[in-house]
């Protein structure tokens, strides 16, 4: 967890300005005649990387093998950040056997010094070289007439950063048995730039014709002072006899096994002068002859549309040390993005010339005529020994008001007007004096639970009550129906008694009721007012048609007997009762 936080903090630092510098070697144990590749990588998210400061390396000969530049774009939280890294390649050759230290390389950026770690190198004896070169056979041919070397500088007094051309020449009149091995002189305090290709030509010295091999190197002194260019060495194997002896001793040549010799040059002194004072305040530090040019890819555009400003500084001098010129743009008029630089070095005619191109994406914020002011670049001209300023011509842009939303899409990743998340953070604390407190749990509240339980319980009770009432009504009816027959028979028996005791009037009334009451009980209907038609209706689907007709005729007969009495009423009544009894028992079977 802490590591992550640390990473975040680190990341924040990187989003600011950060320079990192590392150095690495291909091996740390090396043989005396072998060479070490040293890579120094300077990277950072600024387009103008500071130049590397070389330390004093006394134990090794150091040669620049050029540099390569790479650029990375990354999008972090919607923000573009570019990082540039320059890899400086050097070849180191050891001067002696033992343990040595390659000191720190450093860069200075915004007042801070970034350093590499020193690297320990162990130099061991070479097993192979000892076999090749037998020490007893080495002869120094320093000023041999047939083969010699020279190291010369084209000037002996220079300003800091002024190029000096060092020429190494190998003069020979004889052939070599093997390709000679060249060890360049020790050079410290200079920026070294090889000037290929090597040149071969013939030169006549003192009447003798020599084959000359010339290797040129450009040196840029890094700081003022007296310097000595050390001795250069050439190791070569020549025929072990001189050219003149050839005729005298022919056979010597045939059996000659070659002679290993080491040639040595004289050291050369050079005086490096500091740049004259006073220096202009805007001095860029570049020494040479430079010219600045500014261009845009389009002059008519719309607001929020990107335009690329290309500034080219070209000339001769130490091109690599050219720093980004200051472009003074109004914050209200332009949005400026990171500058991307590219290097173009030309070494034609043994002169370091070239150009450095700075590309900056600008996005105009306002409509109208906007002016990119003249960009000035101040440098020291070592030929005229004066500080000079080269300035580009100002550029006028015609900016039209463009739609905001559309350009967001067309600009794409640059989207200057959209929501840009620059740094994600938590939301701010709550400061309103209005609080949401934790509330007691509802389900633990007794009243609440009781209310909730009472609802379904109440429902259940009501339902039970209603259904109980319904059931009870139904029960009453079935009881009545089951008792109907015995009740009717009982009544009929009573009527017999009434007839026997001659209470005929009463018996009529009861007789009429017996049948209707029976039917009403059976069907669960009210006992009174059951008419003939109603009986017919309610029985219609339950009993046969004939039985209904019988019932109806019986009722009519009762009515007839009651309202038209005759002498033989008693016997008629008894007949009637009998048929009623039969009908009821018939009904009892069906209903």
């Amino acid at each position: 967890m802490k590591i992550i936080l640390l990473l975040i903090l680190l990341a924040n630092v990187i989003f600011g300005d950060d320079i990192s510098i590392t150095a690495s070697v291909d091996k740390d144990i090396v043989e005396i005649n072998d060479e070490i590749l040293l890579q120094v990588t300077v990277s950072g998210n600024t387009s103008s990387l500071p130049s590397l400061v070389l330390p004093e390396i006394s134990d090794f000969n150091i040669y620049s093998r050029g540099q390569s530049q790479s650029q990375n774009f990354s999008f972090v939280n919607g923000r573009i950040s570019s990082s540039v890294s320059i890899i400086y390649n050097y070849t180191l050759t050891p001067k002696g056997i033992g343990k040595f230290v390659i000191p720190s390389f450093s860069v200075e950026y915004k007042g801070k010094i970034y350093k590499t770690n020193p690297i320990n190198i162990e130099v061991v004896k070479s097993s192979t070289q000892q076999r090749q070169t037998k020490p007893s056979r080495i002869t120094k041919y320093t000023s041999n007439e047939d083969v010699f070397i020279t190291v010369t500088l084209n000037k002996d007094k220079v300003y800091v950063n002024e190029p000096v051309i060092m020429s190494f020449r190998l003069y020979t009149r004889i052939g070599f048995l093997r390709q000679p091995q060249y060890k360049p002189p020790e050079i410290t305090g200079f920026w070294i730039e090889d000037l290929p290709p090597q040149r071969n030509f013939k030169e006549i010295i003192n009447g003798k014709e020599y084959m000359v091999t010339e290797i040129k190197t450009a040196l840029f002194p890094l700081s003022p002072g007296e310097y000595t260019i050390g001795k250069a060495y050439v190791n070569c194997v020549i025929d072990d006899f001189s050219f003149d002896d050839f005729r005298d001793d022919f056979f010597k040549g045939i059996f000659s096994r070659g002679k290993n010799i080491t040639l040595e040059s004289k050291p050369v002194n050079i005086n490096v002068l500091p740049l004259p004072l006073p220096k202009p305040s805007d001095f860029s530090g570049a020494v040479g002859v430079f010219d600045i040019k500014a261009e845009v890819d389009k002059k008519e555009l719309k607001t929020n549309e990107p335009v690329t400003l290309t500034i080219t500084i070209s000339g001769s001098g130490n091109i690599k040390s050219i720093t980004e010129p200051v472009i003074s743009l109004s914050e209200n008029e332009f949005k400026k993005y990171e500058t991307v630089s590219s290097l173009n070095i030309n070494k034609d005619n043994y002169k370091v010339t070239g150009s450095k191109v700075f590309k900056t994406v600008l996005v105009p914020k306002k409509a109208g005529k906007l002016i990119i002011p003249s960009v000035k670049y101040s440098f020291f001209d070592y030929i005229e020994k004066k500080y000079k300023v080269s300035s580009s011509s100002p550029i006028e842009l015609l900016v039209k008001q463009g739609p905001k939303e559309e350009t967001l899409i067309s600009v794409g990743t640059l989207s200057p007007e959209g929501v840009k998340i620059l740094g994600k953070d938590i939301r701010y604390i709550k400061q309103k004096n209005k609080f949401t407190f934790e509330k007691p749990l509802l389900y633990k509240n007794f009243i609440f639970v009781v209310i909730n339980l009472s609802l379904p319980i109440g429902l259940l009770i009501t339902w039970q009550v209603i259904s109980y009432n319904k059931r009870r009504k139904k029960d009453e009816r079935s009881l009545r129906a089951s008792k109907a027959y015995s009740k009717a028979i009982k009544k009929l028996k009573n009527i017999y008694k009434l007839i026997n005791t001659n209470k005929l009037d009463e018996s009529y009334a009861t007789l009429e009721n017996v049948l209707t009451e029976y039917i009403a009980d059976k069907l669960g209907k009210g006992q009174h007012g059951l008419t003939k038609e109603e009986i017919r209706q309610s029985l219609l689907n339950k009993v046969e048609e004939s039985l209904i007709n019988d019932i109806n005729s019986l009722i009519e007969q009762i009515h007839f007997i009651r309202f038209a009495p005759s002498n033989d009423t008693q016997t008629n009544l008894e007949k009637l009762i009998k048929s009623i009894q039969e009908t009821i028992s018939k009904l009892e079977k069906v209903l």
Partner: protein
Amino acid sequence: MKKILVFLILFNTFGFSQNQSFIEKFIEANKLYEQQKYSEAINVYKELLSTKSMEVYYNIGNAYFKDKKIGYAILYYEKALKISPRDPDINYNLDYVRSFVKETAVQDTVGKFLNQMYNFVTLNELVLFTSIILLVLTGLLFFYLFKKVELVYWLSIGFGILFFVLLIWTCSRIYQNEDVIYAIVVESLAEAKSAPQDDYTTSFTIPEGKKVQILQTRDGWYEIFLKSENLKGWVKKEVLEII
């Protein structure tokens, strides 16, 4: 019905009983936070913890995050979230702070969404809602007892299903609230052992800020369960803080 209303009103007004010193303390702590004196702000906020307020929990969470204590920050955000599960600020900050917790298990979006839905309402809100649905359902059934109307019949079935689902949800939430204890790892290096003893082997390590379920307690040790990784282990009590 009236009783319920009165009861609810009582319930809500509970939150507005604040006293003056509480507010003063709160403002004091906020000022300390603004001055970036985070640990001091935490101390003042903590004096307000007796009345459990979402705002206090949230601000403590913020202060702990600024003080680079991810575990405690998550702990207090979780506490705040329990009171206000839909507060956008808490959710945003919790999500952001959680992004610093190294998760080994792949977060499945469906599971996360379901979990969010499950905890979308507070337990009280859920209980109340279920209770209202019960009320409506009972009303409908009462009506149906006396008048058999087809519309009421279908409505009752609909509300019945709704009530059933809500009841399961509510019961599950109540169970979670009562029996499932969650805790947050607050130490930067938490090791889970295979048994509640120091000399047992370490089964796994848990990142600070991770939410774990506590299964049981035994003298100074918690048995924890990591659902997404399906791991069980014993950790020391001081490593965890219960939400």
